[in-house]
Every structure is written in structure tokens, then in C-alpha cells.
């Protein structure tokens, strides 16, 4: 097995014990990148070639030299007998939504294509301080708006390592694809409506949306401030836990980062699920989507294989000693997407006001006119369609009486979704769940071009993940199996506030119980030619 396919946990351990050199791990990662990634996403790109369609295109900016300096520093510290950090020498990638000082941070948008942040995001700083080696910035949906990575202004957009004609999911598609294809062990992404979990499911990796406020948002370019959660992507549960323990914790620069102690997420991760109460909900075994003409909600059962994966997983956990609680009602989850449409757009539209060509980023070339002209031209040329849609919708819904009609109702929906979770997890309540088990996405990865352009339907692929964002609760997506077509399917575990340790425990138990399953031996197709 190439060094770059090993777990972060093992790599860090070996490096700290002097059994492995960080520069060797880096070299292995760079080799993998050269083999599978193809040309990085760029603003000015030539049309897609045959070759392009066989590559992953996870990266926007590769920081090889910088990474080498970091790896050398790690090795030097180990030689000197110093503590090189919990993630010593582990190669990681960063979604290009996080500011990294001295390196371009583009948010996959033209309007920031030339922006170099003068500061580093707290979450990233903590990873670097812990010895992680940053390979570079990976691609995403523009400003994190999307569920397929297709809206990026930097093309070619990322492709799914399991089937390169399919999307990797989004908006943290580059992160998930990189991890899945061995381009680094870990990646840090963001999840606002499912943007870590859904691509993790599509790419067959582990992704965690922590509790809102668990990880600092300072330095993360804001999408929807009350929903955004930075989080880890990894190839196994223990690595995700390790990464969370480094990133989590209060930050004096973020007023919404909770001041609660960070538990040792690795301790007890292997305690198993005996006695755990794991719930299933009918409301999460169906999908809904709006009738394109009337807008009325149409309910359908999930595709059989997704449903079966979920029920099978419940069975596996039951065999390990968990108590399965069926029919837990989550009646308000059906408002998840409509409420998300409203809240995320109102906040996003305000967050995008600052991109005006005055202080940083793209400025339209001098027009005849005045300042108003500058604003209009800069924003027209700098933003793609998705940001424009969000800004317009946000403006529409926050003005005057429409605010009452839509925004207030959306906030209400959020409160009611939260109440559903509180009831489900209430230790004195009727269900007393430790974990709610659901599928992560209604389908496996779809083909590129299938949904892009239909923003409504695209959004609905987040319907199983978005409720956790509204409620703020933590949710973990882990690989649950492969579809008949050989595509990854994701299993989601949702828990109460700050119960990430419980989620890791349940996820780890499932991993162990299915360690020898056939489907775990299958590799992403892009790796077939490698080695």
C-alpha cells in the first residue's frame, strides 16, 4: 500500500516514532497527485479533453514547495526529540473556502481569483500547528453554493474517483475526491446543508458535520453564518476523530464558537455499541421533491438499495448489541429544504455584499461610469450564476413584508425541526436515542450535467442532511456499501449537541463489524491504474 493510502493515525504515529519520514509521505502524496489529478481547476481553461475526463481535478492550488518546508520541519522536530504534533507529517488538503496566509483563496469564484489572504483560518492554523502538511487548496462549488462541484468557476471541475463521469458531490467535492483518491489523508471542508456529508457519501469516505460552534469559523468565507460548520473528511472514523480533536475548541475570534472543553475523541472510540439506542425514522426513508409545475411536494420511497443499506446497517449494529428503535417521528424534516432555501439565501446574500471590487479581488476594468457602474460590472462579471441566484433570492425574501411571509416562517420551521431532534434525543423522553440512523443522500453520485441548471432539484439532494444544519446537531456520514452500479452509498448518524464522541463510537463499531465485507475491498476506479 502506498504511504499516501495509509491512515492519518498510523502515519502520525510512525513519523513520531521515527519509523517514517514526513518528506517520504509527502513524496508519495505528490506522486499520487501527479498520477490521478490531471490539470488543476483554473479560470481560463481550455475545453475538456479526453485525458481530462480520466482525471479527478481535485486541486485549484498545489502548494508543493510550502508543503516540503512543512514536512522538513516535522522531520527536524522529530530528530530533535521534540513533540511534532498530533498530526505530524500527515498530508492534508483544504477546501478553497478557508483563508491560508500567503496562498490564493478563491472560493472557486472569479471574484476572488486573485485574492491572497493576509491571515490564516483558525481551524487550519490548528492543523498546521499540529504538524499537518498542507498539499494545497481543493476545488468546490462557487462560494459553497451547490451539491455537485459543477458550479465552480475553476475548470475542469472535480470528478468522482469512483466513476469519473459522475460528480463528486458538493460543495466540498474536491475535499471528498482528494481523500478518496489518496491525494492526502485528510481534508477540511464545510457543511452548510450537507456539503461535507453528501460528497463524503458520493465518494465513499467519512465526513463529519460537527455541532454548530464546535469548530471556529474564523477565516472561513461565509455562506450562511448560522448554518456553516467546518469539519473533517477522512478515510476512516478514527482519522476523522483525530482531526476533530485538533480543530475543535473555543476561539477568541469567533463569538459563536462554544467555550466547552474538547473531549478526547479517540478515547473509548472502540467501546462498541452495546446498549446504545439507535433510531430509525420513516421520515428519513422517503424522499420528497417539488412537482415542477405545481410546486406541491411529491413523496416517494427511497431507491431500494439505499433503503436496504440503511436497514442492513441497523441489523449489523443490532448484532453488535445496539437497541434499534423504529418509527421515530421527525415530522418537520419535510420543511428542511424550503426553510434552507430561505435562511441560507438571506444570510448568503448579505455575506456577498462585501464583494464589490473596492478592497480586494476582482475589479471590472475601468468603466466610463461612476461607483454604481463599478459595483454592477464587477459583480456581474465576477459572480457565477449560483451566487447571483442566491443573492437575488436572499434580497427578495428579506425585504419588507416578504420577510414575514418567508423568513419568519423559515425560522419557525428551524425551531420545529430542532424540537423534533430534542424529543428524539431527550434522555427522559419517549425515544431516548443516542443516535438517529439515516441514509446520507437519496441516491448515489449522479452523472455530470444531470442536474446542473435546475437549482431546485439540485438542492433537494440535500434533504436528508439539511435538518442537522437547522438543528445544529452533529452528523457523521460513513461508507455504508456500494450500489448495484458499484457506487458508494453513505450512512448517516445524527446525535445530540456535542455528542461527536458517540457518533464516532457507533461509526467505528460499524466499520469494525463490516471490515471484511466484500464491498470494502473495492477501490475507486481512478486508482485501478495506479501502482
Amino acid at each position, binding site marked *: 500500500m502506498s504511504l499516501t493510502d495509509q491512515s492519518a493515525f498510523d502515519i502520525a504515529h510512525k513519523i513520531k516514532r521515527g519509523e517514517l519520514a514526513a518528506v517520504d509521505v509527502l513524496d508519495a502524496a505528490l506522486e499520487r497527485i501527479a498520477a490521478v489529478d490531471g490539470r488543476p481547476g483554473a479560470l481560463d481553461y481550455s475545453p475538456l479533453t479526453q485525458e481530462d475526463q480520466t482525471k479527478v481535478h481535485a486541486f485549484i492550488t498545489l502548494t508543493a514547495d510550502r508543503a516540503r518546508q512543512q514536512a522538513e520541519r516535522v522531520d527536524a522536530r522529530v530528530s530533535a526529540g521534540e513533540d511534532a504534533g498530533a498530526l505530524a507529517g500527515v498530508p492534508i488538503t483544504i477546501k478553497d473556502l*478557508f*483563508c491560508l496566509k500567503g496562498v490564493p*483563496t478563491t*472560493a472557486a469564484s472569479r471574484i*476572488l481569483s486573485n*485574492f491572497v*489572504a*493576509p*491571515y490564516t*483560518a483558525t481551524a487550519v492554523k490548528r492543523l498546521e500547528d499540529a504538524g499537518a502538511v498542507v498539499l494545497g487548496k481543493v476545488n468546490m462549488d462557487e462560494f459553497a453554493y451547490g451539491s455537485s462541484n459543477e458550479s465552480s468557476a475553476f475548470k475542469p471541475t472535480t470528478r468522482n474517483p469512483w466513476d469519473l463521469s459522475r460528480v463528486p458531490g458538493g460543495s466540498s467535492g474536491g475535499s471528498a475526491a482528494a481523500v478518496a483518491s489518496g491525494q492526502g489523508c485528510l481534508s477540511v471542508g464545510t457543511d452548510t446543508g450537507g456539503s461535507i456529508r453528501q460528497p463524503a457519501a458520493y465518494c465513499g469516505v467519512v465526513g463529519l458535520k460537527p455541532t454548530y460552534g464546535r469548530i471556529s*469559523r*474564523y*477565516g*472561513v*468565507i*461565509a455562506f*450562511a*453564518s*448560522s448554518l456553516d460548520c467546518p469539519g473533517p473528511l477522512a478515510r476512516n472514523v478514527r482519522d476523522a476523530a483525530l482531526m476533530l480533536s485538533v480543530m475543535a475548541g473555543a476561539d*477568541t*475570534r*469567533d*463569538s*459563536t464558537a462554544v467555550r466547552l472543553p474538547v473531549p478526547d475523541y479517540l478515547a473509548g472510540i472502540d467501546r462498541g455499541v452495546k446498549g446504545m439506542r439507535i433510531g430509525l425514522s420513516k421520515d428519513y426513508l422517503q424522499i420528497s421533491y417539488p412537482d415542477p409545475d405545481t410546486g406541491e411536494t411529491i413523496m416517494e420511497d427511497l431507491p431500494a438499495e439505499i433503503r436496504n443499506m440503511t436497514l442492513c446497517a441497523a441489523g449489523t449494529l443490532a448484532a453488535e448489541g445496539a437497541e434499534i428503535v423504529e418509527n421515530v417521528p421527525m415530522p418537520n424534516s419535510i420543511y428542511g429544504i424550503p426553510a434552507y432555501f430561505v435562511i441560507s439565501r*438571506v*444570510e448568503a446574500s*448579505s455575506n*456577498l*455584499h*462585501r*464583494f*464589490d471590487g*473596492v*478592497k*480586494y479581488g476582482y475589479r471590472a476594468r475601468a468603466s466610463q461610469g461612476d*461607483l454604481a457602474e463599478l*459595483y454592477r460590472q464587477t459583480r456581474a462579471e465576477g459572480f457565477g450564476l449560483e451566487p447571483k441566484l442566491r443573492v437575488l433570492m436572499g*434580497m427578495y425574501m*428579506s*425585504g*419588507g413584508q416578504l*420577510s414575514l411571509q418567508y*423568513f419568519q416562517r423559515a425560522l419557525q420551521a428551524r425551531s420545529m425541526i430542532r424540537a423534533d431532534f430534542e424529543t428524539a434525543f431527550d434522555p427522559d423522553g419517549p425515544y431516548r436515542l443516542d443516535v438517529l440512523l439515516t441514509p446520507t443522500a437519496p441516491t448515489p453520485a449522479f452523472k455530470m450535467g444531470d442536474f446542473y441548471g435546475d437549482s431546485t432539484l439540485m438542492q433537494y439532494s440535500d434533504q436528508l442532511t439539511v435538518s442537522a444544519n437547522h438543528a445544529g446537531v452533529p452528523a457523521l456520514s460513513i461508507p455504508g456499501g456500494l450500489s448495484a452500479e458499484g457506487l458508494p452509498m453513505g450512512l448517516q448518524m445524527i446525535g445530540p449537541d456535542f455528542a461527536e464522541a458517540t457518533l464516532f463510537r457507533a461509526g467505528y463499531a460499524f466499520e469494525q463489524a463490516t471490515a471484511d465485507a466484500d464491498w470494502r475491498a473495492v477501490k475507486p476506479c481512478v486508482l485501478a491504474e495506479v501502482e
Partner: protein
Amino acid sequence: MMNPLAVPDQHRNKDGLMADFEAVIGLETHIQLNTVTKIFCSCKADSWQDPPNTNICPVCAGLPGVLPVLNEAAVYKGALLAAAMHAEIRLVSYFDRKNYFYPDLPKGYQISQFDLALGDGGYLDVTMPGGFVRRVNITKLHLEEDAGKTKYEGGQRLVDFNRCGVPLVEMVTEPDLRSADEAAQYLIRLRQLLRWLGVSEADMEKGHLRCDANVSIRTAGSTYLNTKTEIKNVNSIEAVRAAINMEIERQVALVQAGGQVESWTLDWDETRQRLNKMRSKETEADYRYFREPDLLPLELTSEWRDAVIQNLPELPLERQLRFMTRFQLPEYDADILTADRPIADYYEAALTAYGGDPKILSNWIMNEVLRMQNELGLSADALTLTPEYLAEVIRLVDAGTINAATGKALLVKVQQSGQAPQAIVAAEGLSQVSDDSALQSVIDAVLAAHPQEVESYRGGKEGLFGWFMGQVMRQTRGQADPAKTRALLQKALQGKR
């Protein structure tokens, strides 16, 4: 031919208005708090002389990915002001985003407070010219962040973010004021209060206290509100007074001529002392306020709030009244002696040390100490001439040890040297000459030296008396006891007749 728009004087009432009309004025003030740092980041709040864009950080420059973190001192000072304005301090208040585009607003929104602000209600009682007290009610009192500055030069706008994020309290009055003088008086009292509390330097010329005035007129005695205009860019109390007066006259003349007041925004041109119309007030920009998601609700405990209220110092008007009732001082004196806290504290400390007539002390301070303060540019608490030293000097004068003139000069000596008055008197031999025989010999010498003047005086030129006094004073280095000298000199000038 008479200008048809001019209003004949005989039709004006005591405020100078057409007797049928009254003015209705509301003031919107922005108060810059004197915290060390900005409201949402750790840059300095005061960057008055700094080169442009040097007092900035990612947060106040509105870079992508930044977040606001609320300054505890801004909350304290805001609450203190709310308490002093008799407003209710809300235990839970919220910040909201006010969204609009302008180059001095880097985030494209201002973090402010919309409906559930820190302060609720409130008022300030202001003694108006004419002697009555008007209660000016407050309709808004909230915290917000300042924008940067722009200036126009060479066809372009130059933008400086140094001031972005400075903490402001916005305070809006009901339209309770009825004249430009009342508006000026409100601002004077507000400025005094802000300095009194120590929450703002309140220097209008430096933009610590900014004011927009809303002006309308209506038939005297009515209660409805007519269309108002908004006056901006008035940077001093006098400018406020002049601008409001001018606008009232304009509106009255307009209405008299059959016209209608439109809701214009007017810009005050200080150099030319006139009002210019800015672009007409379009439909109020839709700011699309919504709760600021990057900040938690501001939650204060009732203990904290009660402590703020408890710690309120005695306010200026209260102290002024106390000076009047307890010390029997006239309003004029009490007003001057409570102009700021240092001088009020100075007075009371001096009175305690002096133990004598409060009015005598008041005179000394009003005539001598205040002048000294002005000349030296010092606050009363920075004087080397401490209240205790002042008291000592006055007691020396009262006791006749030195005369008044010497006393006044002594104040300066104390301030310059820092030595105790008694010590200086002893060292320089400043004691008043009161000994009759000593005085007599000086007087005799002076008269002997100036026989012609004596002739003139006795011949009827009685004005020379003052000159003779001056001569005696000179010979005694100013230390002659004036009363005794006068009596003896009179006798001497008459006696030889």
C-alpha cells in the same frame, strides 16, 4: 419693491417666527465612545492623526472570512449612557445587519441594533433659554459600528478605513424641540453629560459627536407632524443653530408663499453658511434588517445592570441643583461650577478645606481659577493649584495677612512653583502691610515726593487719588492693606489743608 417672501417683523413672535407657526425639531446624534479599541476588533478606537489605512485589521477591513467579537467596554459605556438618560437597559438585546452599498462600509452592511436595542426609551431634561425645563424624549438608543471615511479628490473618491468599526451610540430624540436655540441647548447638555460620564470626548469638531437635524413646521398649537427635511454635515453647535434657523425660515417662507415642504436632505455648507439640497430623499432604502448571525444575543444579568445604575455619578443637573440649594449659590454660579466633573469636584474639595462662605469661594474660582485653566489648557484636576492650596490662599486674604491683589498673584505663584501658599508668603515677605505707622511713613514719603500732584488734588483734581494709591502700593510692593491705606491717605491729603 418688497420681497413677497420676506416676513415683516411685526408679524414675528418671540422666536422670530411668523406667529402662526411653530418649529418641530428632532435630533439624531451619533456618539463616538472613548473605548481603547473598536467595537468588534482589537484595533484602536482613536486614530485621529494616523496615516490612512494603517489602523486596520482583517475584521474591520471586511475581509472574507472574518467575524465580529463584541468589546465589553463598549457595552459598559453604552449601558452607562442609557442609565444616565433614564432609559431602560434591556437585559437581552440583539445586533442586526443593516445592508447597503457604500465604499466606506467594507462589509456592505453595518452591524447595528434595530428593534431590540440596548436602551429602551429615556429622556433628558434640559433647561432652555427662557428658564423653563423641556423634557426631550429619546426614541432610540443603540450600539453600532462606525463606517470609514471618504473624501473627494481629483474626480475620485479616496477611502480610509481607519475609523471603521469605532463604537458608536446612536441616540434619536422625539421631535420635542421647538427652536434652533433649544436644539443647541440640548447638544450642549448632551456634550456635557457625555464628558461627565466619561463615555466620550464629545468633541464635535473631531466627529466624536455628530448630529443630523430633522426640521418641520406646523401651525402653532397643533399636534400633527408635517413633512420634514433632514440637515446633515453640521459639525459644531453654532452650525446646528445657524442651519436650523435658516431652514425654519425657508420652510415658513415657502409655506407662506403657498408652497409645500418636500422631504429633502440638506447639506450644510460651513464656508458659505448656507444649505444645499442633496439628492432628494428617495424611497427609504430597504436595509433588510435581520439578526446578526455572527453574534450571540447580548445577555446582561440584572446584578450587572443594577451595578451600572448604582455607579452612576451624580448627574450635572442634579449637582447643579444641589449647589444651589445646599450652598445657596445663584444658578449662574452653579451652572458654571458644574460645567464638568473636575471643576465641580474641585469646588467641593476647596469648600471643605476652606470652610467659609461658598459664594466667596465661587467668586474666586469663577474669576481666577477658570481663567487660569483656560490659559493653561488644563482640566481642574490637573492644576498644581490644588483645592486645598486655593482654600489656604483665600483664608490668608480673609484674615488680612495678604491683600486681594497679592492673593491673586499668589495663585499663579502656587501653580507655577507647586509650593504651599504659606511658604511662598513667608519666603517672599508678601504679608500685607497693615501697620499704621509703617503705612503712614510711606504715605508721608509719597506726598513729600510729589508736591505738585498734592497741589492739584487739593485744587480739586480728585481723580488723582487713585494715582496716589498706586504710588503707595508701588512703594510697598503691592502689599499695603488697601482699606487702611485709603483711610490714612485720605486724611493725609486732606489733613494738610
